[in-house]
């Protein structure tokens, strides 16, 4: 009795609230539209979520830090609790960073949460990009969202670098010093940009406050805007799903937003936050008190930037000696401009890749079923080459540590890296492409003949065969459902002319699709099954005869 009355009361409370909100906002329609929206489920889809949640953690922990941090480069004499630096001249920025660390309860924890989540944010965004690349999720209609994601990745690096420089410690000051040196190398306007950025000569008294404005306002605002566009596009496009039985370009298979996805994604936010908190509790990051305030003269050996800047630093290191030259009395610092150009071209290629591939395939259909990486061998190989290129540049930022840790000659390590930067991407392209093609052939074989059982049978006429077990329909479909392309010839256009574009497209299509393994067709599989049945029949007959 009382139980049912309770239920009724609860219901009426919920209904009342819902009614109140809906009468003022009309959200019932929104909920009807989105409440049961389907989201596919796969572990690799969580990488983007990790990036998103790390960003939320960054906003929370960063807000906390702004309440205590003072972005001023005015010189003070330190008088805090950290004894080794007592009496040292330093900027207010550095002193307030020390105060957050040593005099605010939870301050060190929040500093570490902020730094670790920044590292995780860029890492997760990068892995998410790789997932999107290797599964072909950037294809139509998602090309623009790839570009938005790319911008987010760059903004993430920018947010990281501007934040890294704020405490004005020795390590980050040297980072800024390198930026200043690179800027000065830009022809014509380099020293002007440097003077404008630093408000005069390096290091000046402005840069921390300026980076602070960028770090806590402009860049996060841009990230929020692009994040919003990224997510709205995600909803408009509906999420991709991996190939498999029942999954088509015309549907989306997964779980409804409410309740399953809300519980999973919401819970996952807490897990990401919790793991960041766990790492920040136990692992020190950026112990600025060990470095001291910025001073242009000292530096410690083995200094490293945060990981996501490493590849740019590596590019600087790998530039060969003696590349600077003079033109009409002016200095051209190719030792800076070349790494800069290489990095920018690399990024530009990443940004426009979807458009290149689409131009080559000419496939204007919408693609919602993801490729297994093996089923797009050349794309996967290009991705592997790109990853290798990035990785060598990244490792290049640690040449000194590699040399000292492994007791090798620094010069040889660097020369080896320079050679590797050219050679290894090519090697990884070839190896990856071959691996993909082999996997495709294996898939095709399994699709047609079934799985090897290890059962060897000798037939009456002496032949030995291994019995194959056919796949069930669901396993089979996963192996054969992929898009197959073939190279094209350069064709004349409407005016009967073969354009240069058409020639390039034809040779690129050859590069992409010359080596291809077509998915097994129904007739091939049926023929093979028929053959297998005949053999099975013979086997049975032989067994009968043996009895």
């Amino acid at each position, binding site marked *: 009795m009382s139980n049912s009355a309770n239920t009724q009361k609860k219901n009426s409370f919920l209904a009342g609230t819902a009614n109140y909100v809906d009468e003022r906002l009309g959200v019932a329609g929104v909920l009807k539209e989105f409440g049961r929206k389907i989201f596919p489920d796969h572990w690799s889809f969580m990488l983007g979520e990790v990036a998103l949640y790390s960003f939320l953690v960054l906003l929370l922990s960063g807000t906390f830090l702004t309440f205590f941090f003072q972005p001023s480069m005015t010189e003070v004499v330190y008088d805090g609790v950290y004894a080794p630096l007592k009496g040292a001249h330093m900027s207010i920025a550095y002193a307030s960073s020390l105060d957050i660390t040593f005099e605010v309860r939870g301050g060190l924890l929040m500093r570490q949460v902020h730094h670790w989540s920044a590292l995780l944010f860029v890492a997760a965004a990068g892995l998410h990009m790789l997932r999107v690349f290797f599964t072909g999720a950037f294809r139509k209609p998602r090309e623009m969202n790839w570009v938005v994601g790319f911008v987010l990745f760059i903004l993430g690096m920018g947010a990281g670098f501007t934040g890294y420089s704020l405490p004005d410690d020795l390590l980050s000051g040297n980072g800024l010093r390198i930026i200043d040196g690179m800027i000065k190398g830009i022809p014509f306007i380099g020293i002007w940009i440097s003077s404008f950025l630093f408000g005069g000569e390096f290091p000046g008294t402005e840069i921390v406050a300026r980076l602070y404005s960028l770090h806590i306002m402009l860049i996060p605002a841009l990230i929020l805007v692009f994040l919003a566009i990224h997510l709205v596009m995600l909803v408009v496009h509906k999420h991709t799903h991996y190939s498999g039985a029942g999954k088509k370009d015309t549907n989306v298979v997964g779980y409804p937003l409410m*309740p399953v996805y809300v519980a999973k994604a919401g819970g*996952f936010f807490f897990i990401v936050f919790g793991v960041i908190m766990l790492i920040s509790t136990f692992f020190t990051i950026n112990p600025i008190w060990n470095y001291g305030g910025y001073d242009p003269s000292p530096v410690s050996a083995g200094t490293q930037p945060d990981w996501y800047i490493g590849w740019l630093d590596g590019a600087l290191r790998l530039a060969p000696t003696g590349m600077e030259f003079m033109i009409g009395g*002016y200095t051209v610092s190719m*030792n800076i401009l070349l790494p800069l150009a290489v990095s920018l071209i690399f990024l530009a290629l990443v940004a426009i890749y979807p458009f290149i591939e689409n131009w080559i395939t000419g496939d*204007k*259909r919408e693609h919602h079923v993801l490729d297994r990486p093996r089923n797009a061998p050349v794309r996967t190989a290009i991705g592997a080459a790109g990853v290798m290129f990035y990785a060598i540049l990244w490792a290049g930022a640690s040449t000194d540590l590699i040399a000292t840790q492994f007791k090798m000659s620094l010069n040889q390590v660097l020369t080896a890296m320079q050679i590797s930067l050219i050679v290894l991407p090519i090697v990884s392209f070839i190896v990856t492409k071959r691996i993909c093609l082999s996997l495709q052939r294996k898939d095709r074989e399994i699709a047609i003949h079934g799985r090897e059982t290890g059962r060897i049978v000798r037939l009456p006429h002496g032949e030995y065969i291994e019995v194959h077990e056919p796949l069930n329909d669901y396993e089979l479909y996963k192996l054969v459902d992929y898009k197959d392309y073939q190279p094209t010839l350069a064709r004349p256009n409407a005016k009967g002319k073969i354009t240069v574009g058409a020639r390039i497209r034809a040779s690129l299509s050859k590069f992409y699709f010359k080596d291809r393994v077509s998915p097994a067709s129904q007739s091939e599989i049926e023929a093979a099954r028929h053959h297998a049945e005949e053999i099975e029949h013979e086997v049975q007959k032989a067994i009968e005869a043996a009895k």
Partner: protein
Amino acid sequence: MSEQSKDIERSQNSGLAVIKPDAVRDPGIEPHRVRMTDKSPKHAKNAARQVALLFALSMLGSAFALWAYFAFPLTEDLNTVRQNTLYLGVGITLGLLGIGIGAIHWAKTLMPDHEVAEDRHVLASSEDKRAAAIEIINLANKESGFTRRKLIRRTLYGALALFPLPGLIIFGDLGPNPGNSLRHTIWKKGTRLARDPYGTPIKASDVTIGSVYHVVPEGLVPGTEHYLEEKAKAAVLLVRVEPDKLIETEERKSWSYQGIVAYSKICTHVGCPVALYEQHTHHLLCPCHQSTFDLVDGCKVVFGPAARPLPQLPIYVDEEGYLRAQSDFNEPVGPSFWDRSVKS
């Protein structure tokens, strides 16, 4: 499947794709696999208990964090920072992970896990919608006369092109004209060489063979105006080697004193301090990008991305035996810039 969603595969050009007439048929979504919690109420009840336990653990963690905040105040003893971070962090971690793992366990064990399919629709609008949109644009164009009234249109373009310029120019005071600042340091004739960071002058007799001094111009101590800016250009490394080992040009013979040489410490690559000296090889190494300079051979680059030798500071010894600069550097120190070799 609706007619419209079928269009996704039909309506657009498939380019180089091979369309197989006898592709393997799609068997449809795999049948749902029943979980233990679906068929056994006992398992479901256990799972519910586990979820509740995780949420309870979260409450405990948060309460622990609250307690830790007050239980571990920060004092002069740096150990308290460690304790505060540790216990606060452990509590908050439990508070977060309890909720996270609990919610996901709930979703995985107790919420339905039937895969559901939903139709997609072609993203492009239907033909009549497109026609309507074009109609609206044409109407707007007609009503405003945007294409018809060329004068208005072109002056508008002009105005739109110019209006951001004041917005750019107001950033003009971000920094001064770099002028000649990069070509000069505060070294001048007679400035004594002093130890960094103490500021005490150095006697030639203090500099034994093989020893390295980090040097600043005398008088440049923390607290002086533009201390860091001046130091970023004026920092010098002073080393004494056996005089017969020095390879010096005629012009520079007088720049050193009995094997004592002074070179700019600011790397000619991107400006890091070249702080590492290797006694055996007489090499100076920049820790940032490993540019290596041969100290006895005019600090020429022997390795790494730097292109130019480190600038040398000409020195002499006064009557009291103190090291002094003969003049400023004879070229701009630090990273290269476009017109560094242009005399101004």
